[in-house]
């Protein structure tokens, strides 16, 4: 299942994004998975609420970072594909 403009990505039920005080870093975690996303990735993940489409997420990011929408779109798809392969982002209408 590929991710496309109309997909509505969200964090998997098991995944949590939080600030780690010991390491001074954002941490995205689910069992057996720990990531330390950079600021851009944190902005992306924070918008993945299962309501917004990928298209609206990247439009919002393009405005926020004042960057070309196509470049933002490609980078975001790349990031979300990677996180979906790790199971921390889901993007279908599966059970909640």
């Amino acid at each position, binding site marked *: *299942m590929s*991710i496309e403009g109309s997909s509505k990505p969200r964090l998997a039920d098991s995944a949590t994004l939080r600030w780690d005080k010991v390491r001074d870093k954002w941490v995205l975690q689910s069992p057996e998975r720990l990531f330390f996303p950079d600021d851009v990735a944190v902005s992306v993940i924070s918008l993945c609420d299962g309501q917004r489409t990928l298209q609206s997420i990247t439009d919002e990011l393009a405005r926020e970072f004042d960057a070309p929408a196509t470049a933002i779109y490609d980078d975001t798809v790349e990031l979300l594909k990677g996180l979906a*392969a790790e*199971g921390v982002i*889901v*993007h279908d209408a599966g059970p909640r």
Partner: protein
Amino acid sequence: MTPARVEPPLAFLAELTHRCPLQCPYCSNPLELVGGRAELSTAEWITVFEDAARLGVMQVHLSGGEPTARRDLVGLVRAAEQAGLYTNLITSGVLLDRRKIDDLAAAGLRHIQLSIQDADPAEADRIAAYPQAHLKKLAVAREIRSAGLALTLNVVVHRRNLPRLDGIIDIAVDLGAERLEVAHAQYHGWALINRAALMPSQDQVQSAVATIAAAARRLHGRMQIDHVVPDYHARRPKACMGGWGRRFFVIAPDGAMLPCHAATSIPGMSFPNVRTTALKAAWDDSAAFTAFRGTAWMAEPCRSCEFRDVDFGGCRCQALTLAGHAAATDPVCDRSPLHDKLQALVEREVASGTSSLQLRRPKPSSRASDRSREYGLVTLID
């Protein structure tokens, strides 16, 4: 040589109890089980959670034995969450009902990892040695999802149940699991004494790899499948626990703090106990945690190997079991002089066709530490 830089641990396994109603013959608990009376109290566990969070631990895996056999489990989950830990419950599910699941969710539990034994109910119940275990587990899995909790389905695979891997994947999809963990039996403790009956063939392992790759493509973005080629069938070892004393530790039911759940099999090693040693001192400086940390302890061929900081020489307990001493190169590695013998051992055990299994019992039938020496490469062949 990399200096043994001490980073804070990421996660730990809390073996809340070794008590369990099931008797799976590949149980990861040691042969010498800790009795109920020796278990840490509620207050002692809470102190462990608080100290672990302060040390930098982010996740606690609440396990056993069967962790739901602890009557204080809901309170322990709440305390771990309040300490700032991500909580994952590793359970067989047979003691759970909807009310308990709701209580755990309300206490802040983030995720449940539920085990099944097989896709075939009769064989699953035979392996667990618990009547109706399989049906009960499926019902509990559905309750977990309907309570809104994230679910990983875990199955230990081996020669007997690998033919039904497709059926196992179907069950995970049907239950709405977020993740399926296909874990090959690891040959320590109980699985070691049952190794000949559990060992899969190379063909079975290759077929599992193909089946899972196809399913993972089909289910991308819906269900994650975790599977790694089992050690005995691989050419390179894994960084056991992410490296000794580097990412992970285990607290046994009696408070012993271990670098991995099988570490008590290593003779002459004494372990710190949370009842008497502060967690940070135990992690940073104890003899057990520094023994194989980093790469300075290595002999050849590991010492000069370009992968020494990748796999950290593999698994110390496996080196002990197979090569006769814990500081040896893991014979899983094809640079170990014992690697060819390991391949021969796999073929011999598959060819044995034995189906005799010793189920997990409070006491193994003969002295475990003596018996486990019979399963190495050195004593078996030389």
